[in-house]
């Protein structure tokens, strides 16, 4: 009887493979038991309706966790999702629009080019928006599944089966250890800005000199060489988002968070220093532009550049160390 097969299919469809067959066989026997001898289609309908909604029964059979993000994290997930996607989309749109102004229009250009650019803009915005949403979701789903271990101050996440004791009570957070949300938001904006500029419009990093009303752009970075660094930049951006989500959820410094935070900023510092020392990454025309801008010779400019690099490296080191120490002392603060 087709109806019975369809009912069994509806119940067992989502069950794990090893249970599917057995549950189906048992259900079929039970249904047949409930039917009279020489049953009609009406009998089958009556019995199946008596059994009730197959999806509800399937739910009862289902042994696995059937949600991506549970109630404990749900509202935080949505807040972070809106925030990150909003920031990313805004940053990318801004950078693309800025990029338009420096895209030299070629002869014979007309309105159609602007249509193309607009389509491109929407494409880029949708692409990064989806990427950001995907990664935020992946991070939250991992937290939900305990991949990062149990995190402090995440009530409702600890396994209800574990014996609970008073020791498990979360400490009342020390206010001095608080990670201000605004700080996290600003750091995510900076990260996104930095990453998006390098990813979408790397030529924009440079010097603009207006000559006879014509803007001239001397890019700092050699775009092809930059591709070598792109995987690292993207991975770091992703890790930064993960760290941001973590900070956003726990809200207060703790030692594992501190370790991750310092590791990420040291890696970022190393990346920046390696990049600035990579002579193949720096575009030669940039020195021309800079020499013109400051009205000095090309040779002097090269010498000056060395100084700039030293100052930059020093600044990166000082900021990284200062930031790490600041976070460290905040983490160590005791309740007043």
């Amino acid at each position, binding site marked *: 009887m087709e109806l019975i097969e369809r009912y069994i299919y509806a119940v067992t469809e989502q069950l794990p493979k090893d249970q599917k067959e*057995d*549950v189906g*066989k*048992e*259900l079929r*026997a*039970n249904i*047949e*038991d*409930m039917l009279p001898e020489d049953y009609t289609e009406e009998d089958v309908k009556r019995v199946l309706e*008596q*059994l*009730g*909604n197959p999806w*509800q*029964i399937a739910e*009862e*059979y289902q*042994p696995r966790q059937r949600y991506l993000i549970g109630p404990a994290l749900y509202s935080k997930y949505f807040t972070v999702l809106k925030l990150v996607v909003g920031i990313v989309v805004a940053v990318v749109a801004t950078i693309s629009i800025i990029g338009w102004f420096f895209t030299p229009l070629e002869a014979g250009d007309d309105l159609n080019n602007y249509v193309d650019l607009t389509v491109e803009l929407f494409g880029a915005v949708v692409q990064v928006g989806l990427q950001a949403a995907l990664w935020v979701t992946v991070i939250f789903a991992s937290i939900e599944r305990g991949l990062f271990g149990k995190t402090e101050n995440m009530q409702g996440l600890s396994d209800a089966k574990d014996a609970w004791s008073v020791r498990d009570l979360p400490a009342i957070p020390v206010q001095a250890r608080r990670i201000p949300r605004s700080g996290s938001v600003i750091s995510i904006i900076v990260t996104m800005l930095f990453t998006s500029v390098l990813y979408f419009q790397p030529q924009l990093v440079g010097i603009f000199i207006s000559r006879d009303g014509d803007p001239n752009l001397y890019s700092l970075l050699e775009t092809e060489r930059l591709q070598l660094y792109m995987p690292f930049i993207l991975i770091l951006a992703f890790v930064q988002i993960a760290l941001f989500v973590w900070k956003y959820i726990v809200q207060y410094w703790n030692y594992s968070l501190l370790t991750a935070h310092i590791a990420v900023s040291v890696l970022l510092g190393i990346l920046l220093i390696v990049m600035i020392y990579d002579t193949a990454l720096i575009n030669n025309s940039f020195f021309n532009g800079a020499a013109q801008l400051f009205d000095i010779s090309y040779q002097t400019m090269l010498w000056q550049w060395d100084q700039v690099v030293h100052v930059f490296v020093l600044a990166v080191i000082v900021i990284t160390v200062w930031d790490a120490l600041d976070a460290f002392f905040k983490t160590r603060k005791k309740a007043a």
Partner: protein
Amino acid sequence: MDSTEELIHTLTVELKRGTLVLLVLSQLHQPEYGYSLIQKLEDKHAPIEAGTLYPLLRRLEKQQLLKSEWDTTDSRPRKFYVLSEQGKQVYNELKTEWQTLSSQLAQILLEEEQ
């Protein structure tokens, strides 16, 4: 009015749900298959919905309170369930718990009436 009735219905279902395991375990000293158990409980005026019972039997088996075996001697193969050793032990404990609970509750409700 309607919502009160609905609420009473929901609460009654909840109240009964807690006793389902005990009810099912009590009937499984001899092997039974799904439908035979439904009829048995119906005869005892404690009907249980088929859609609730079948998954419950599997869950109890997974918790090792029940053992199961396919009987293929009949023209129609049937899966028989019976209490395991652990199941018998759990059943006895649960029964005692239930008796204590119900006599306590009866006492409290009686006092309330007076």
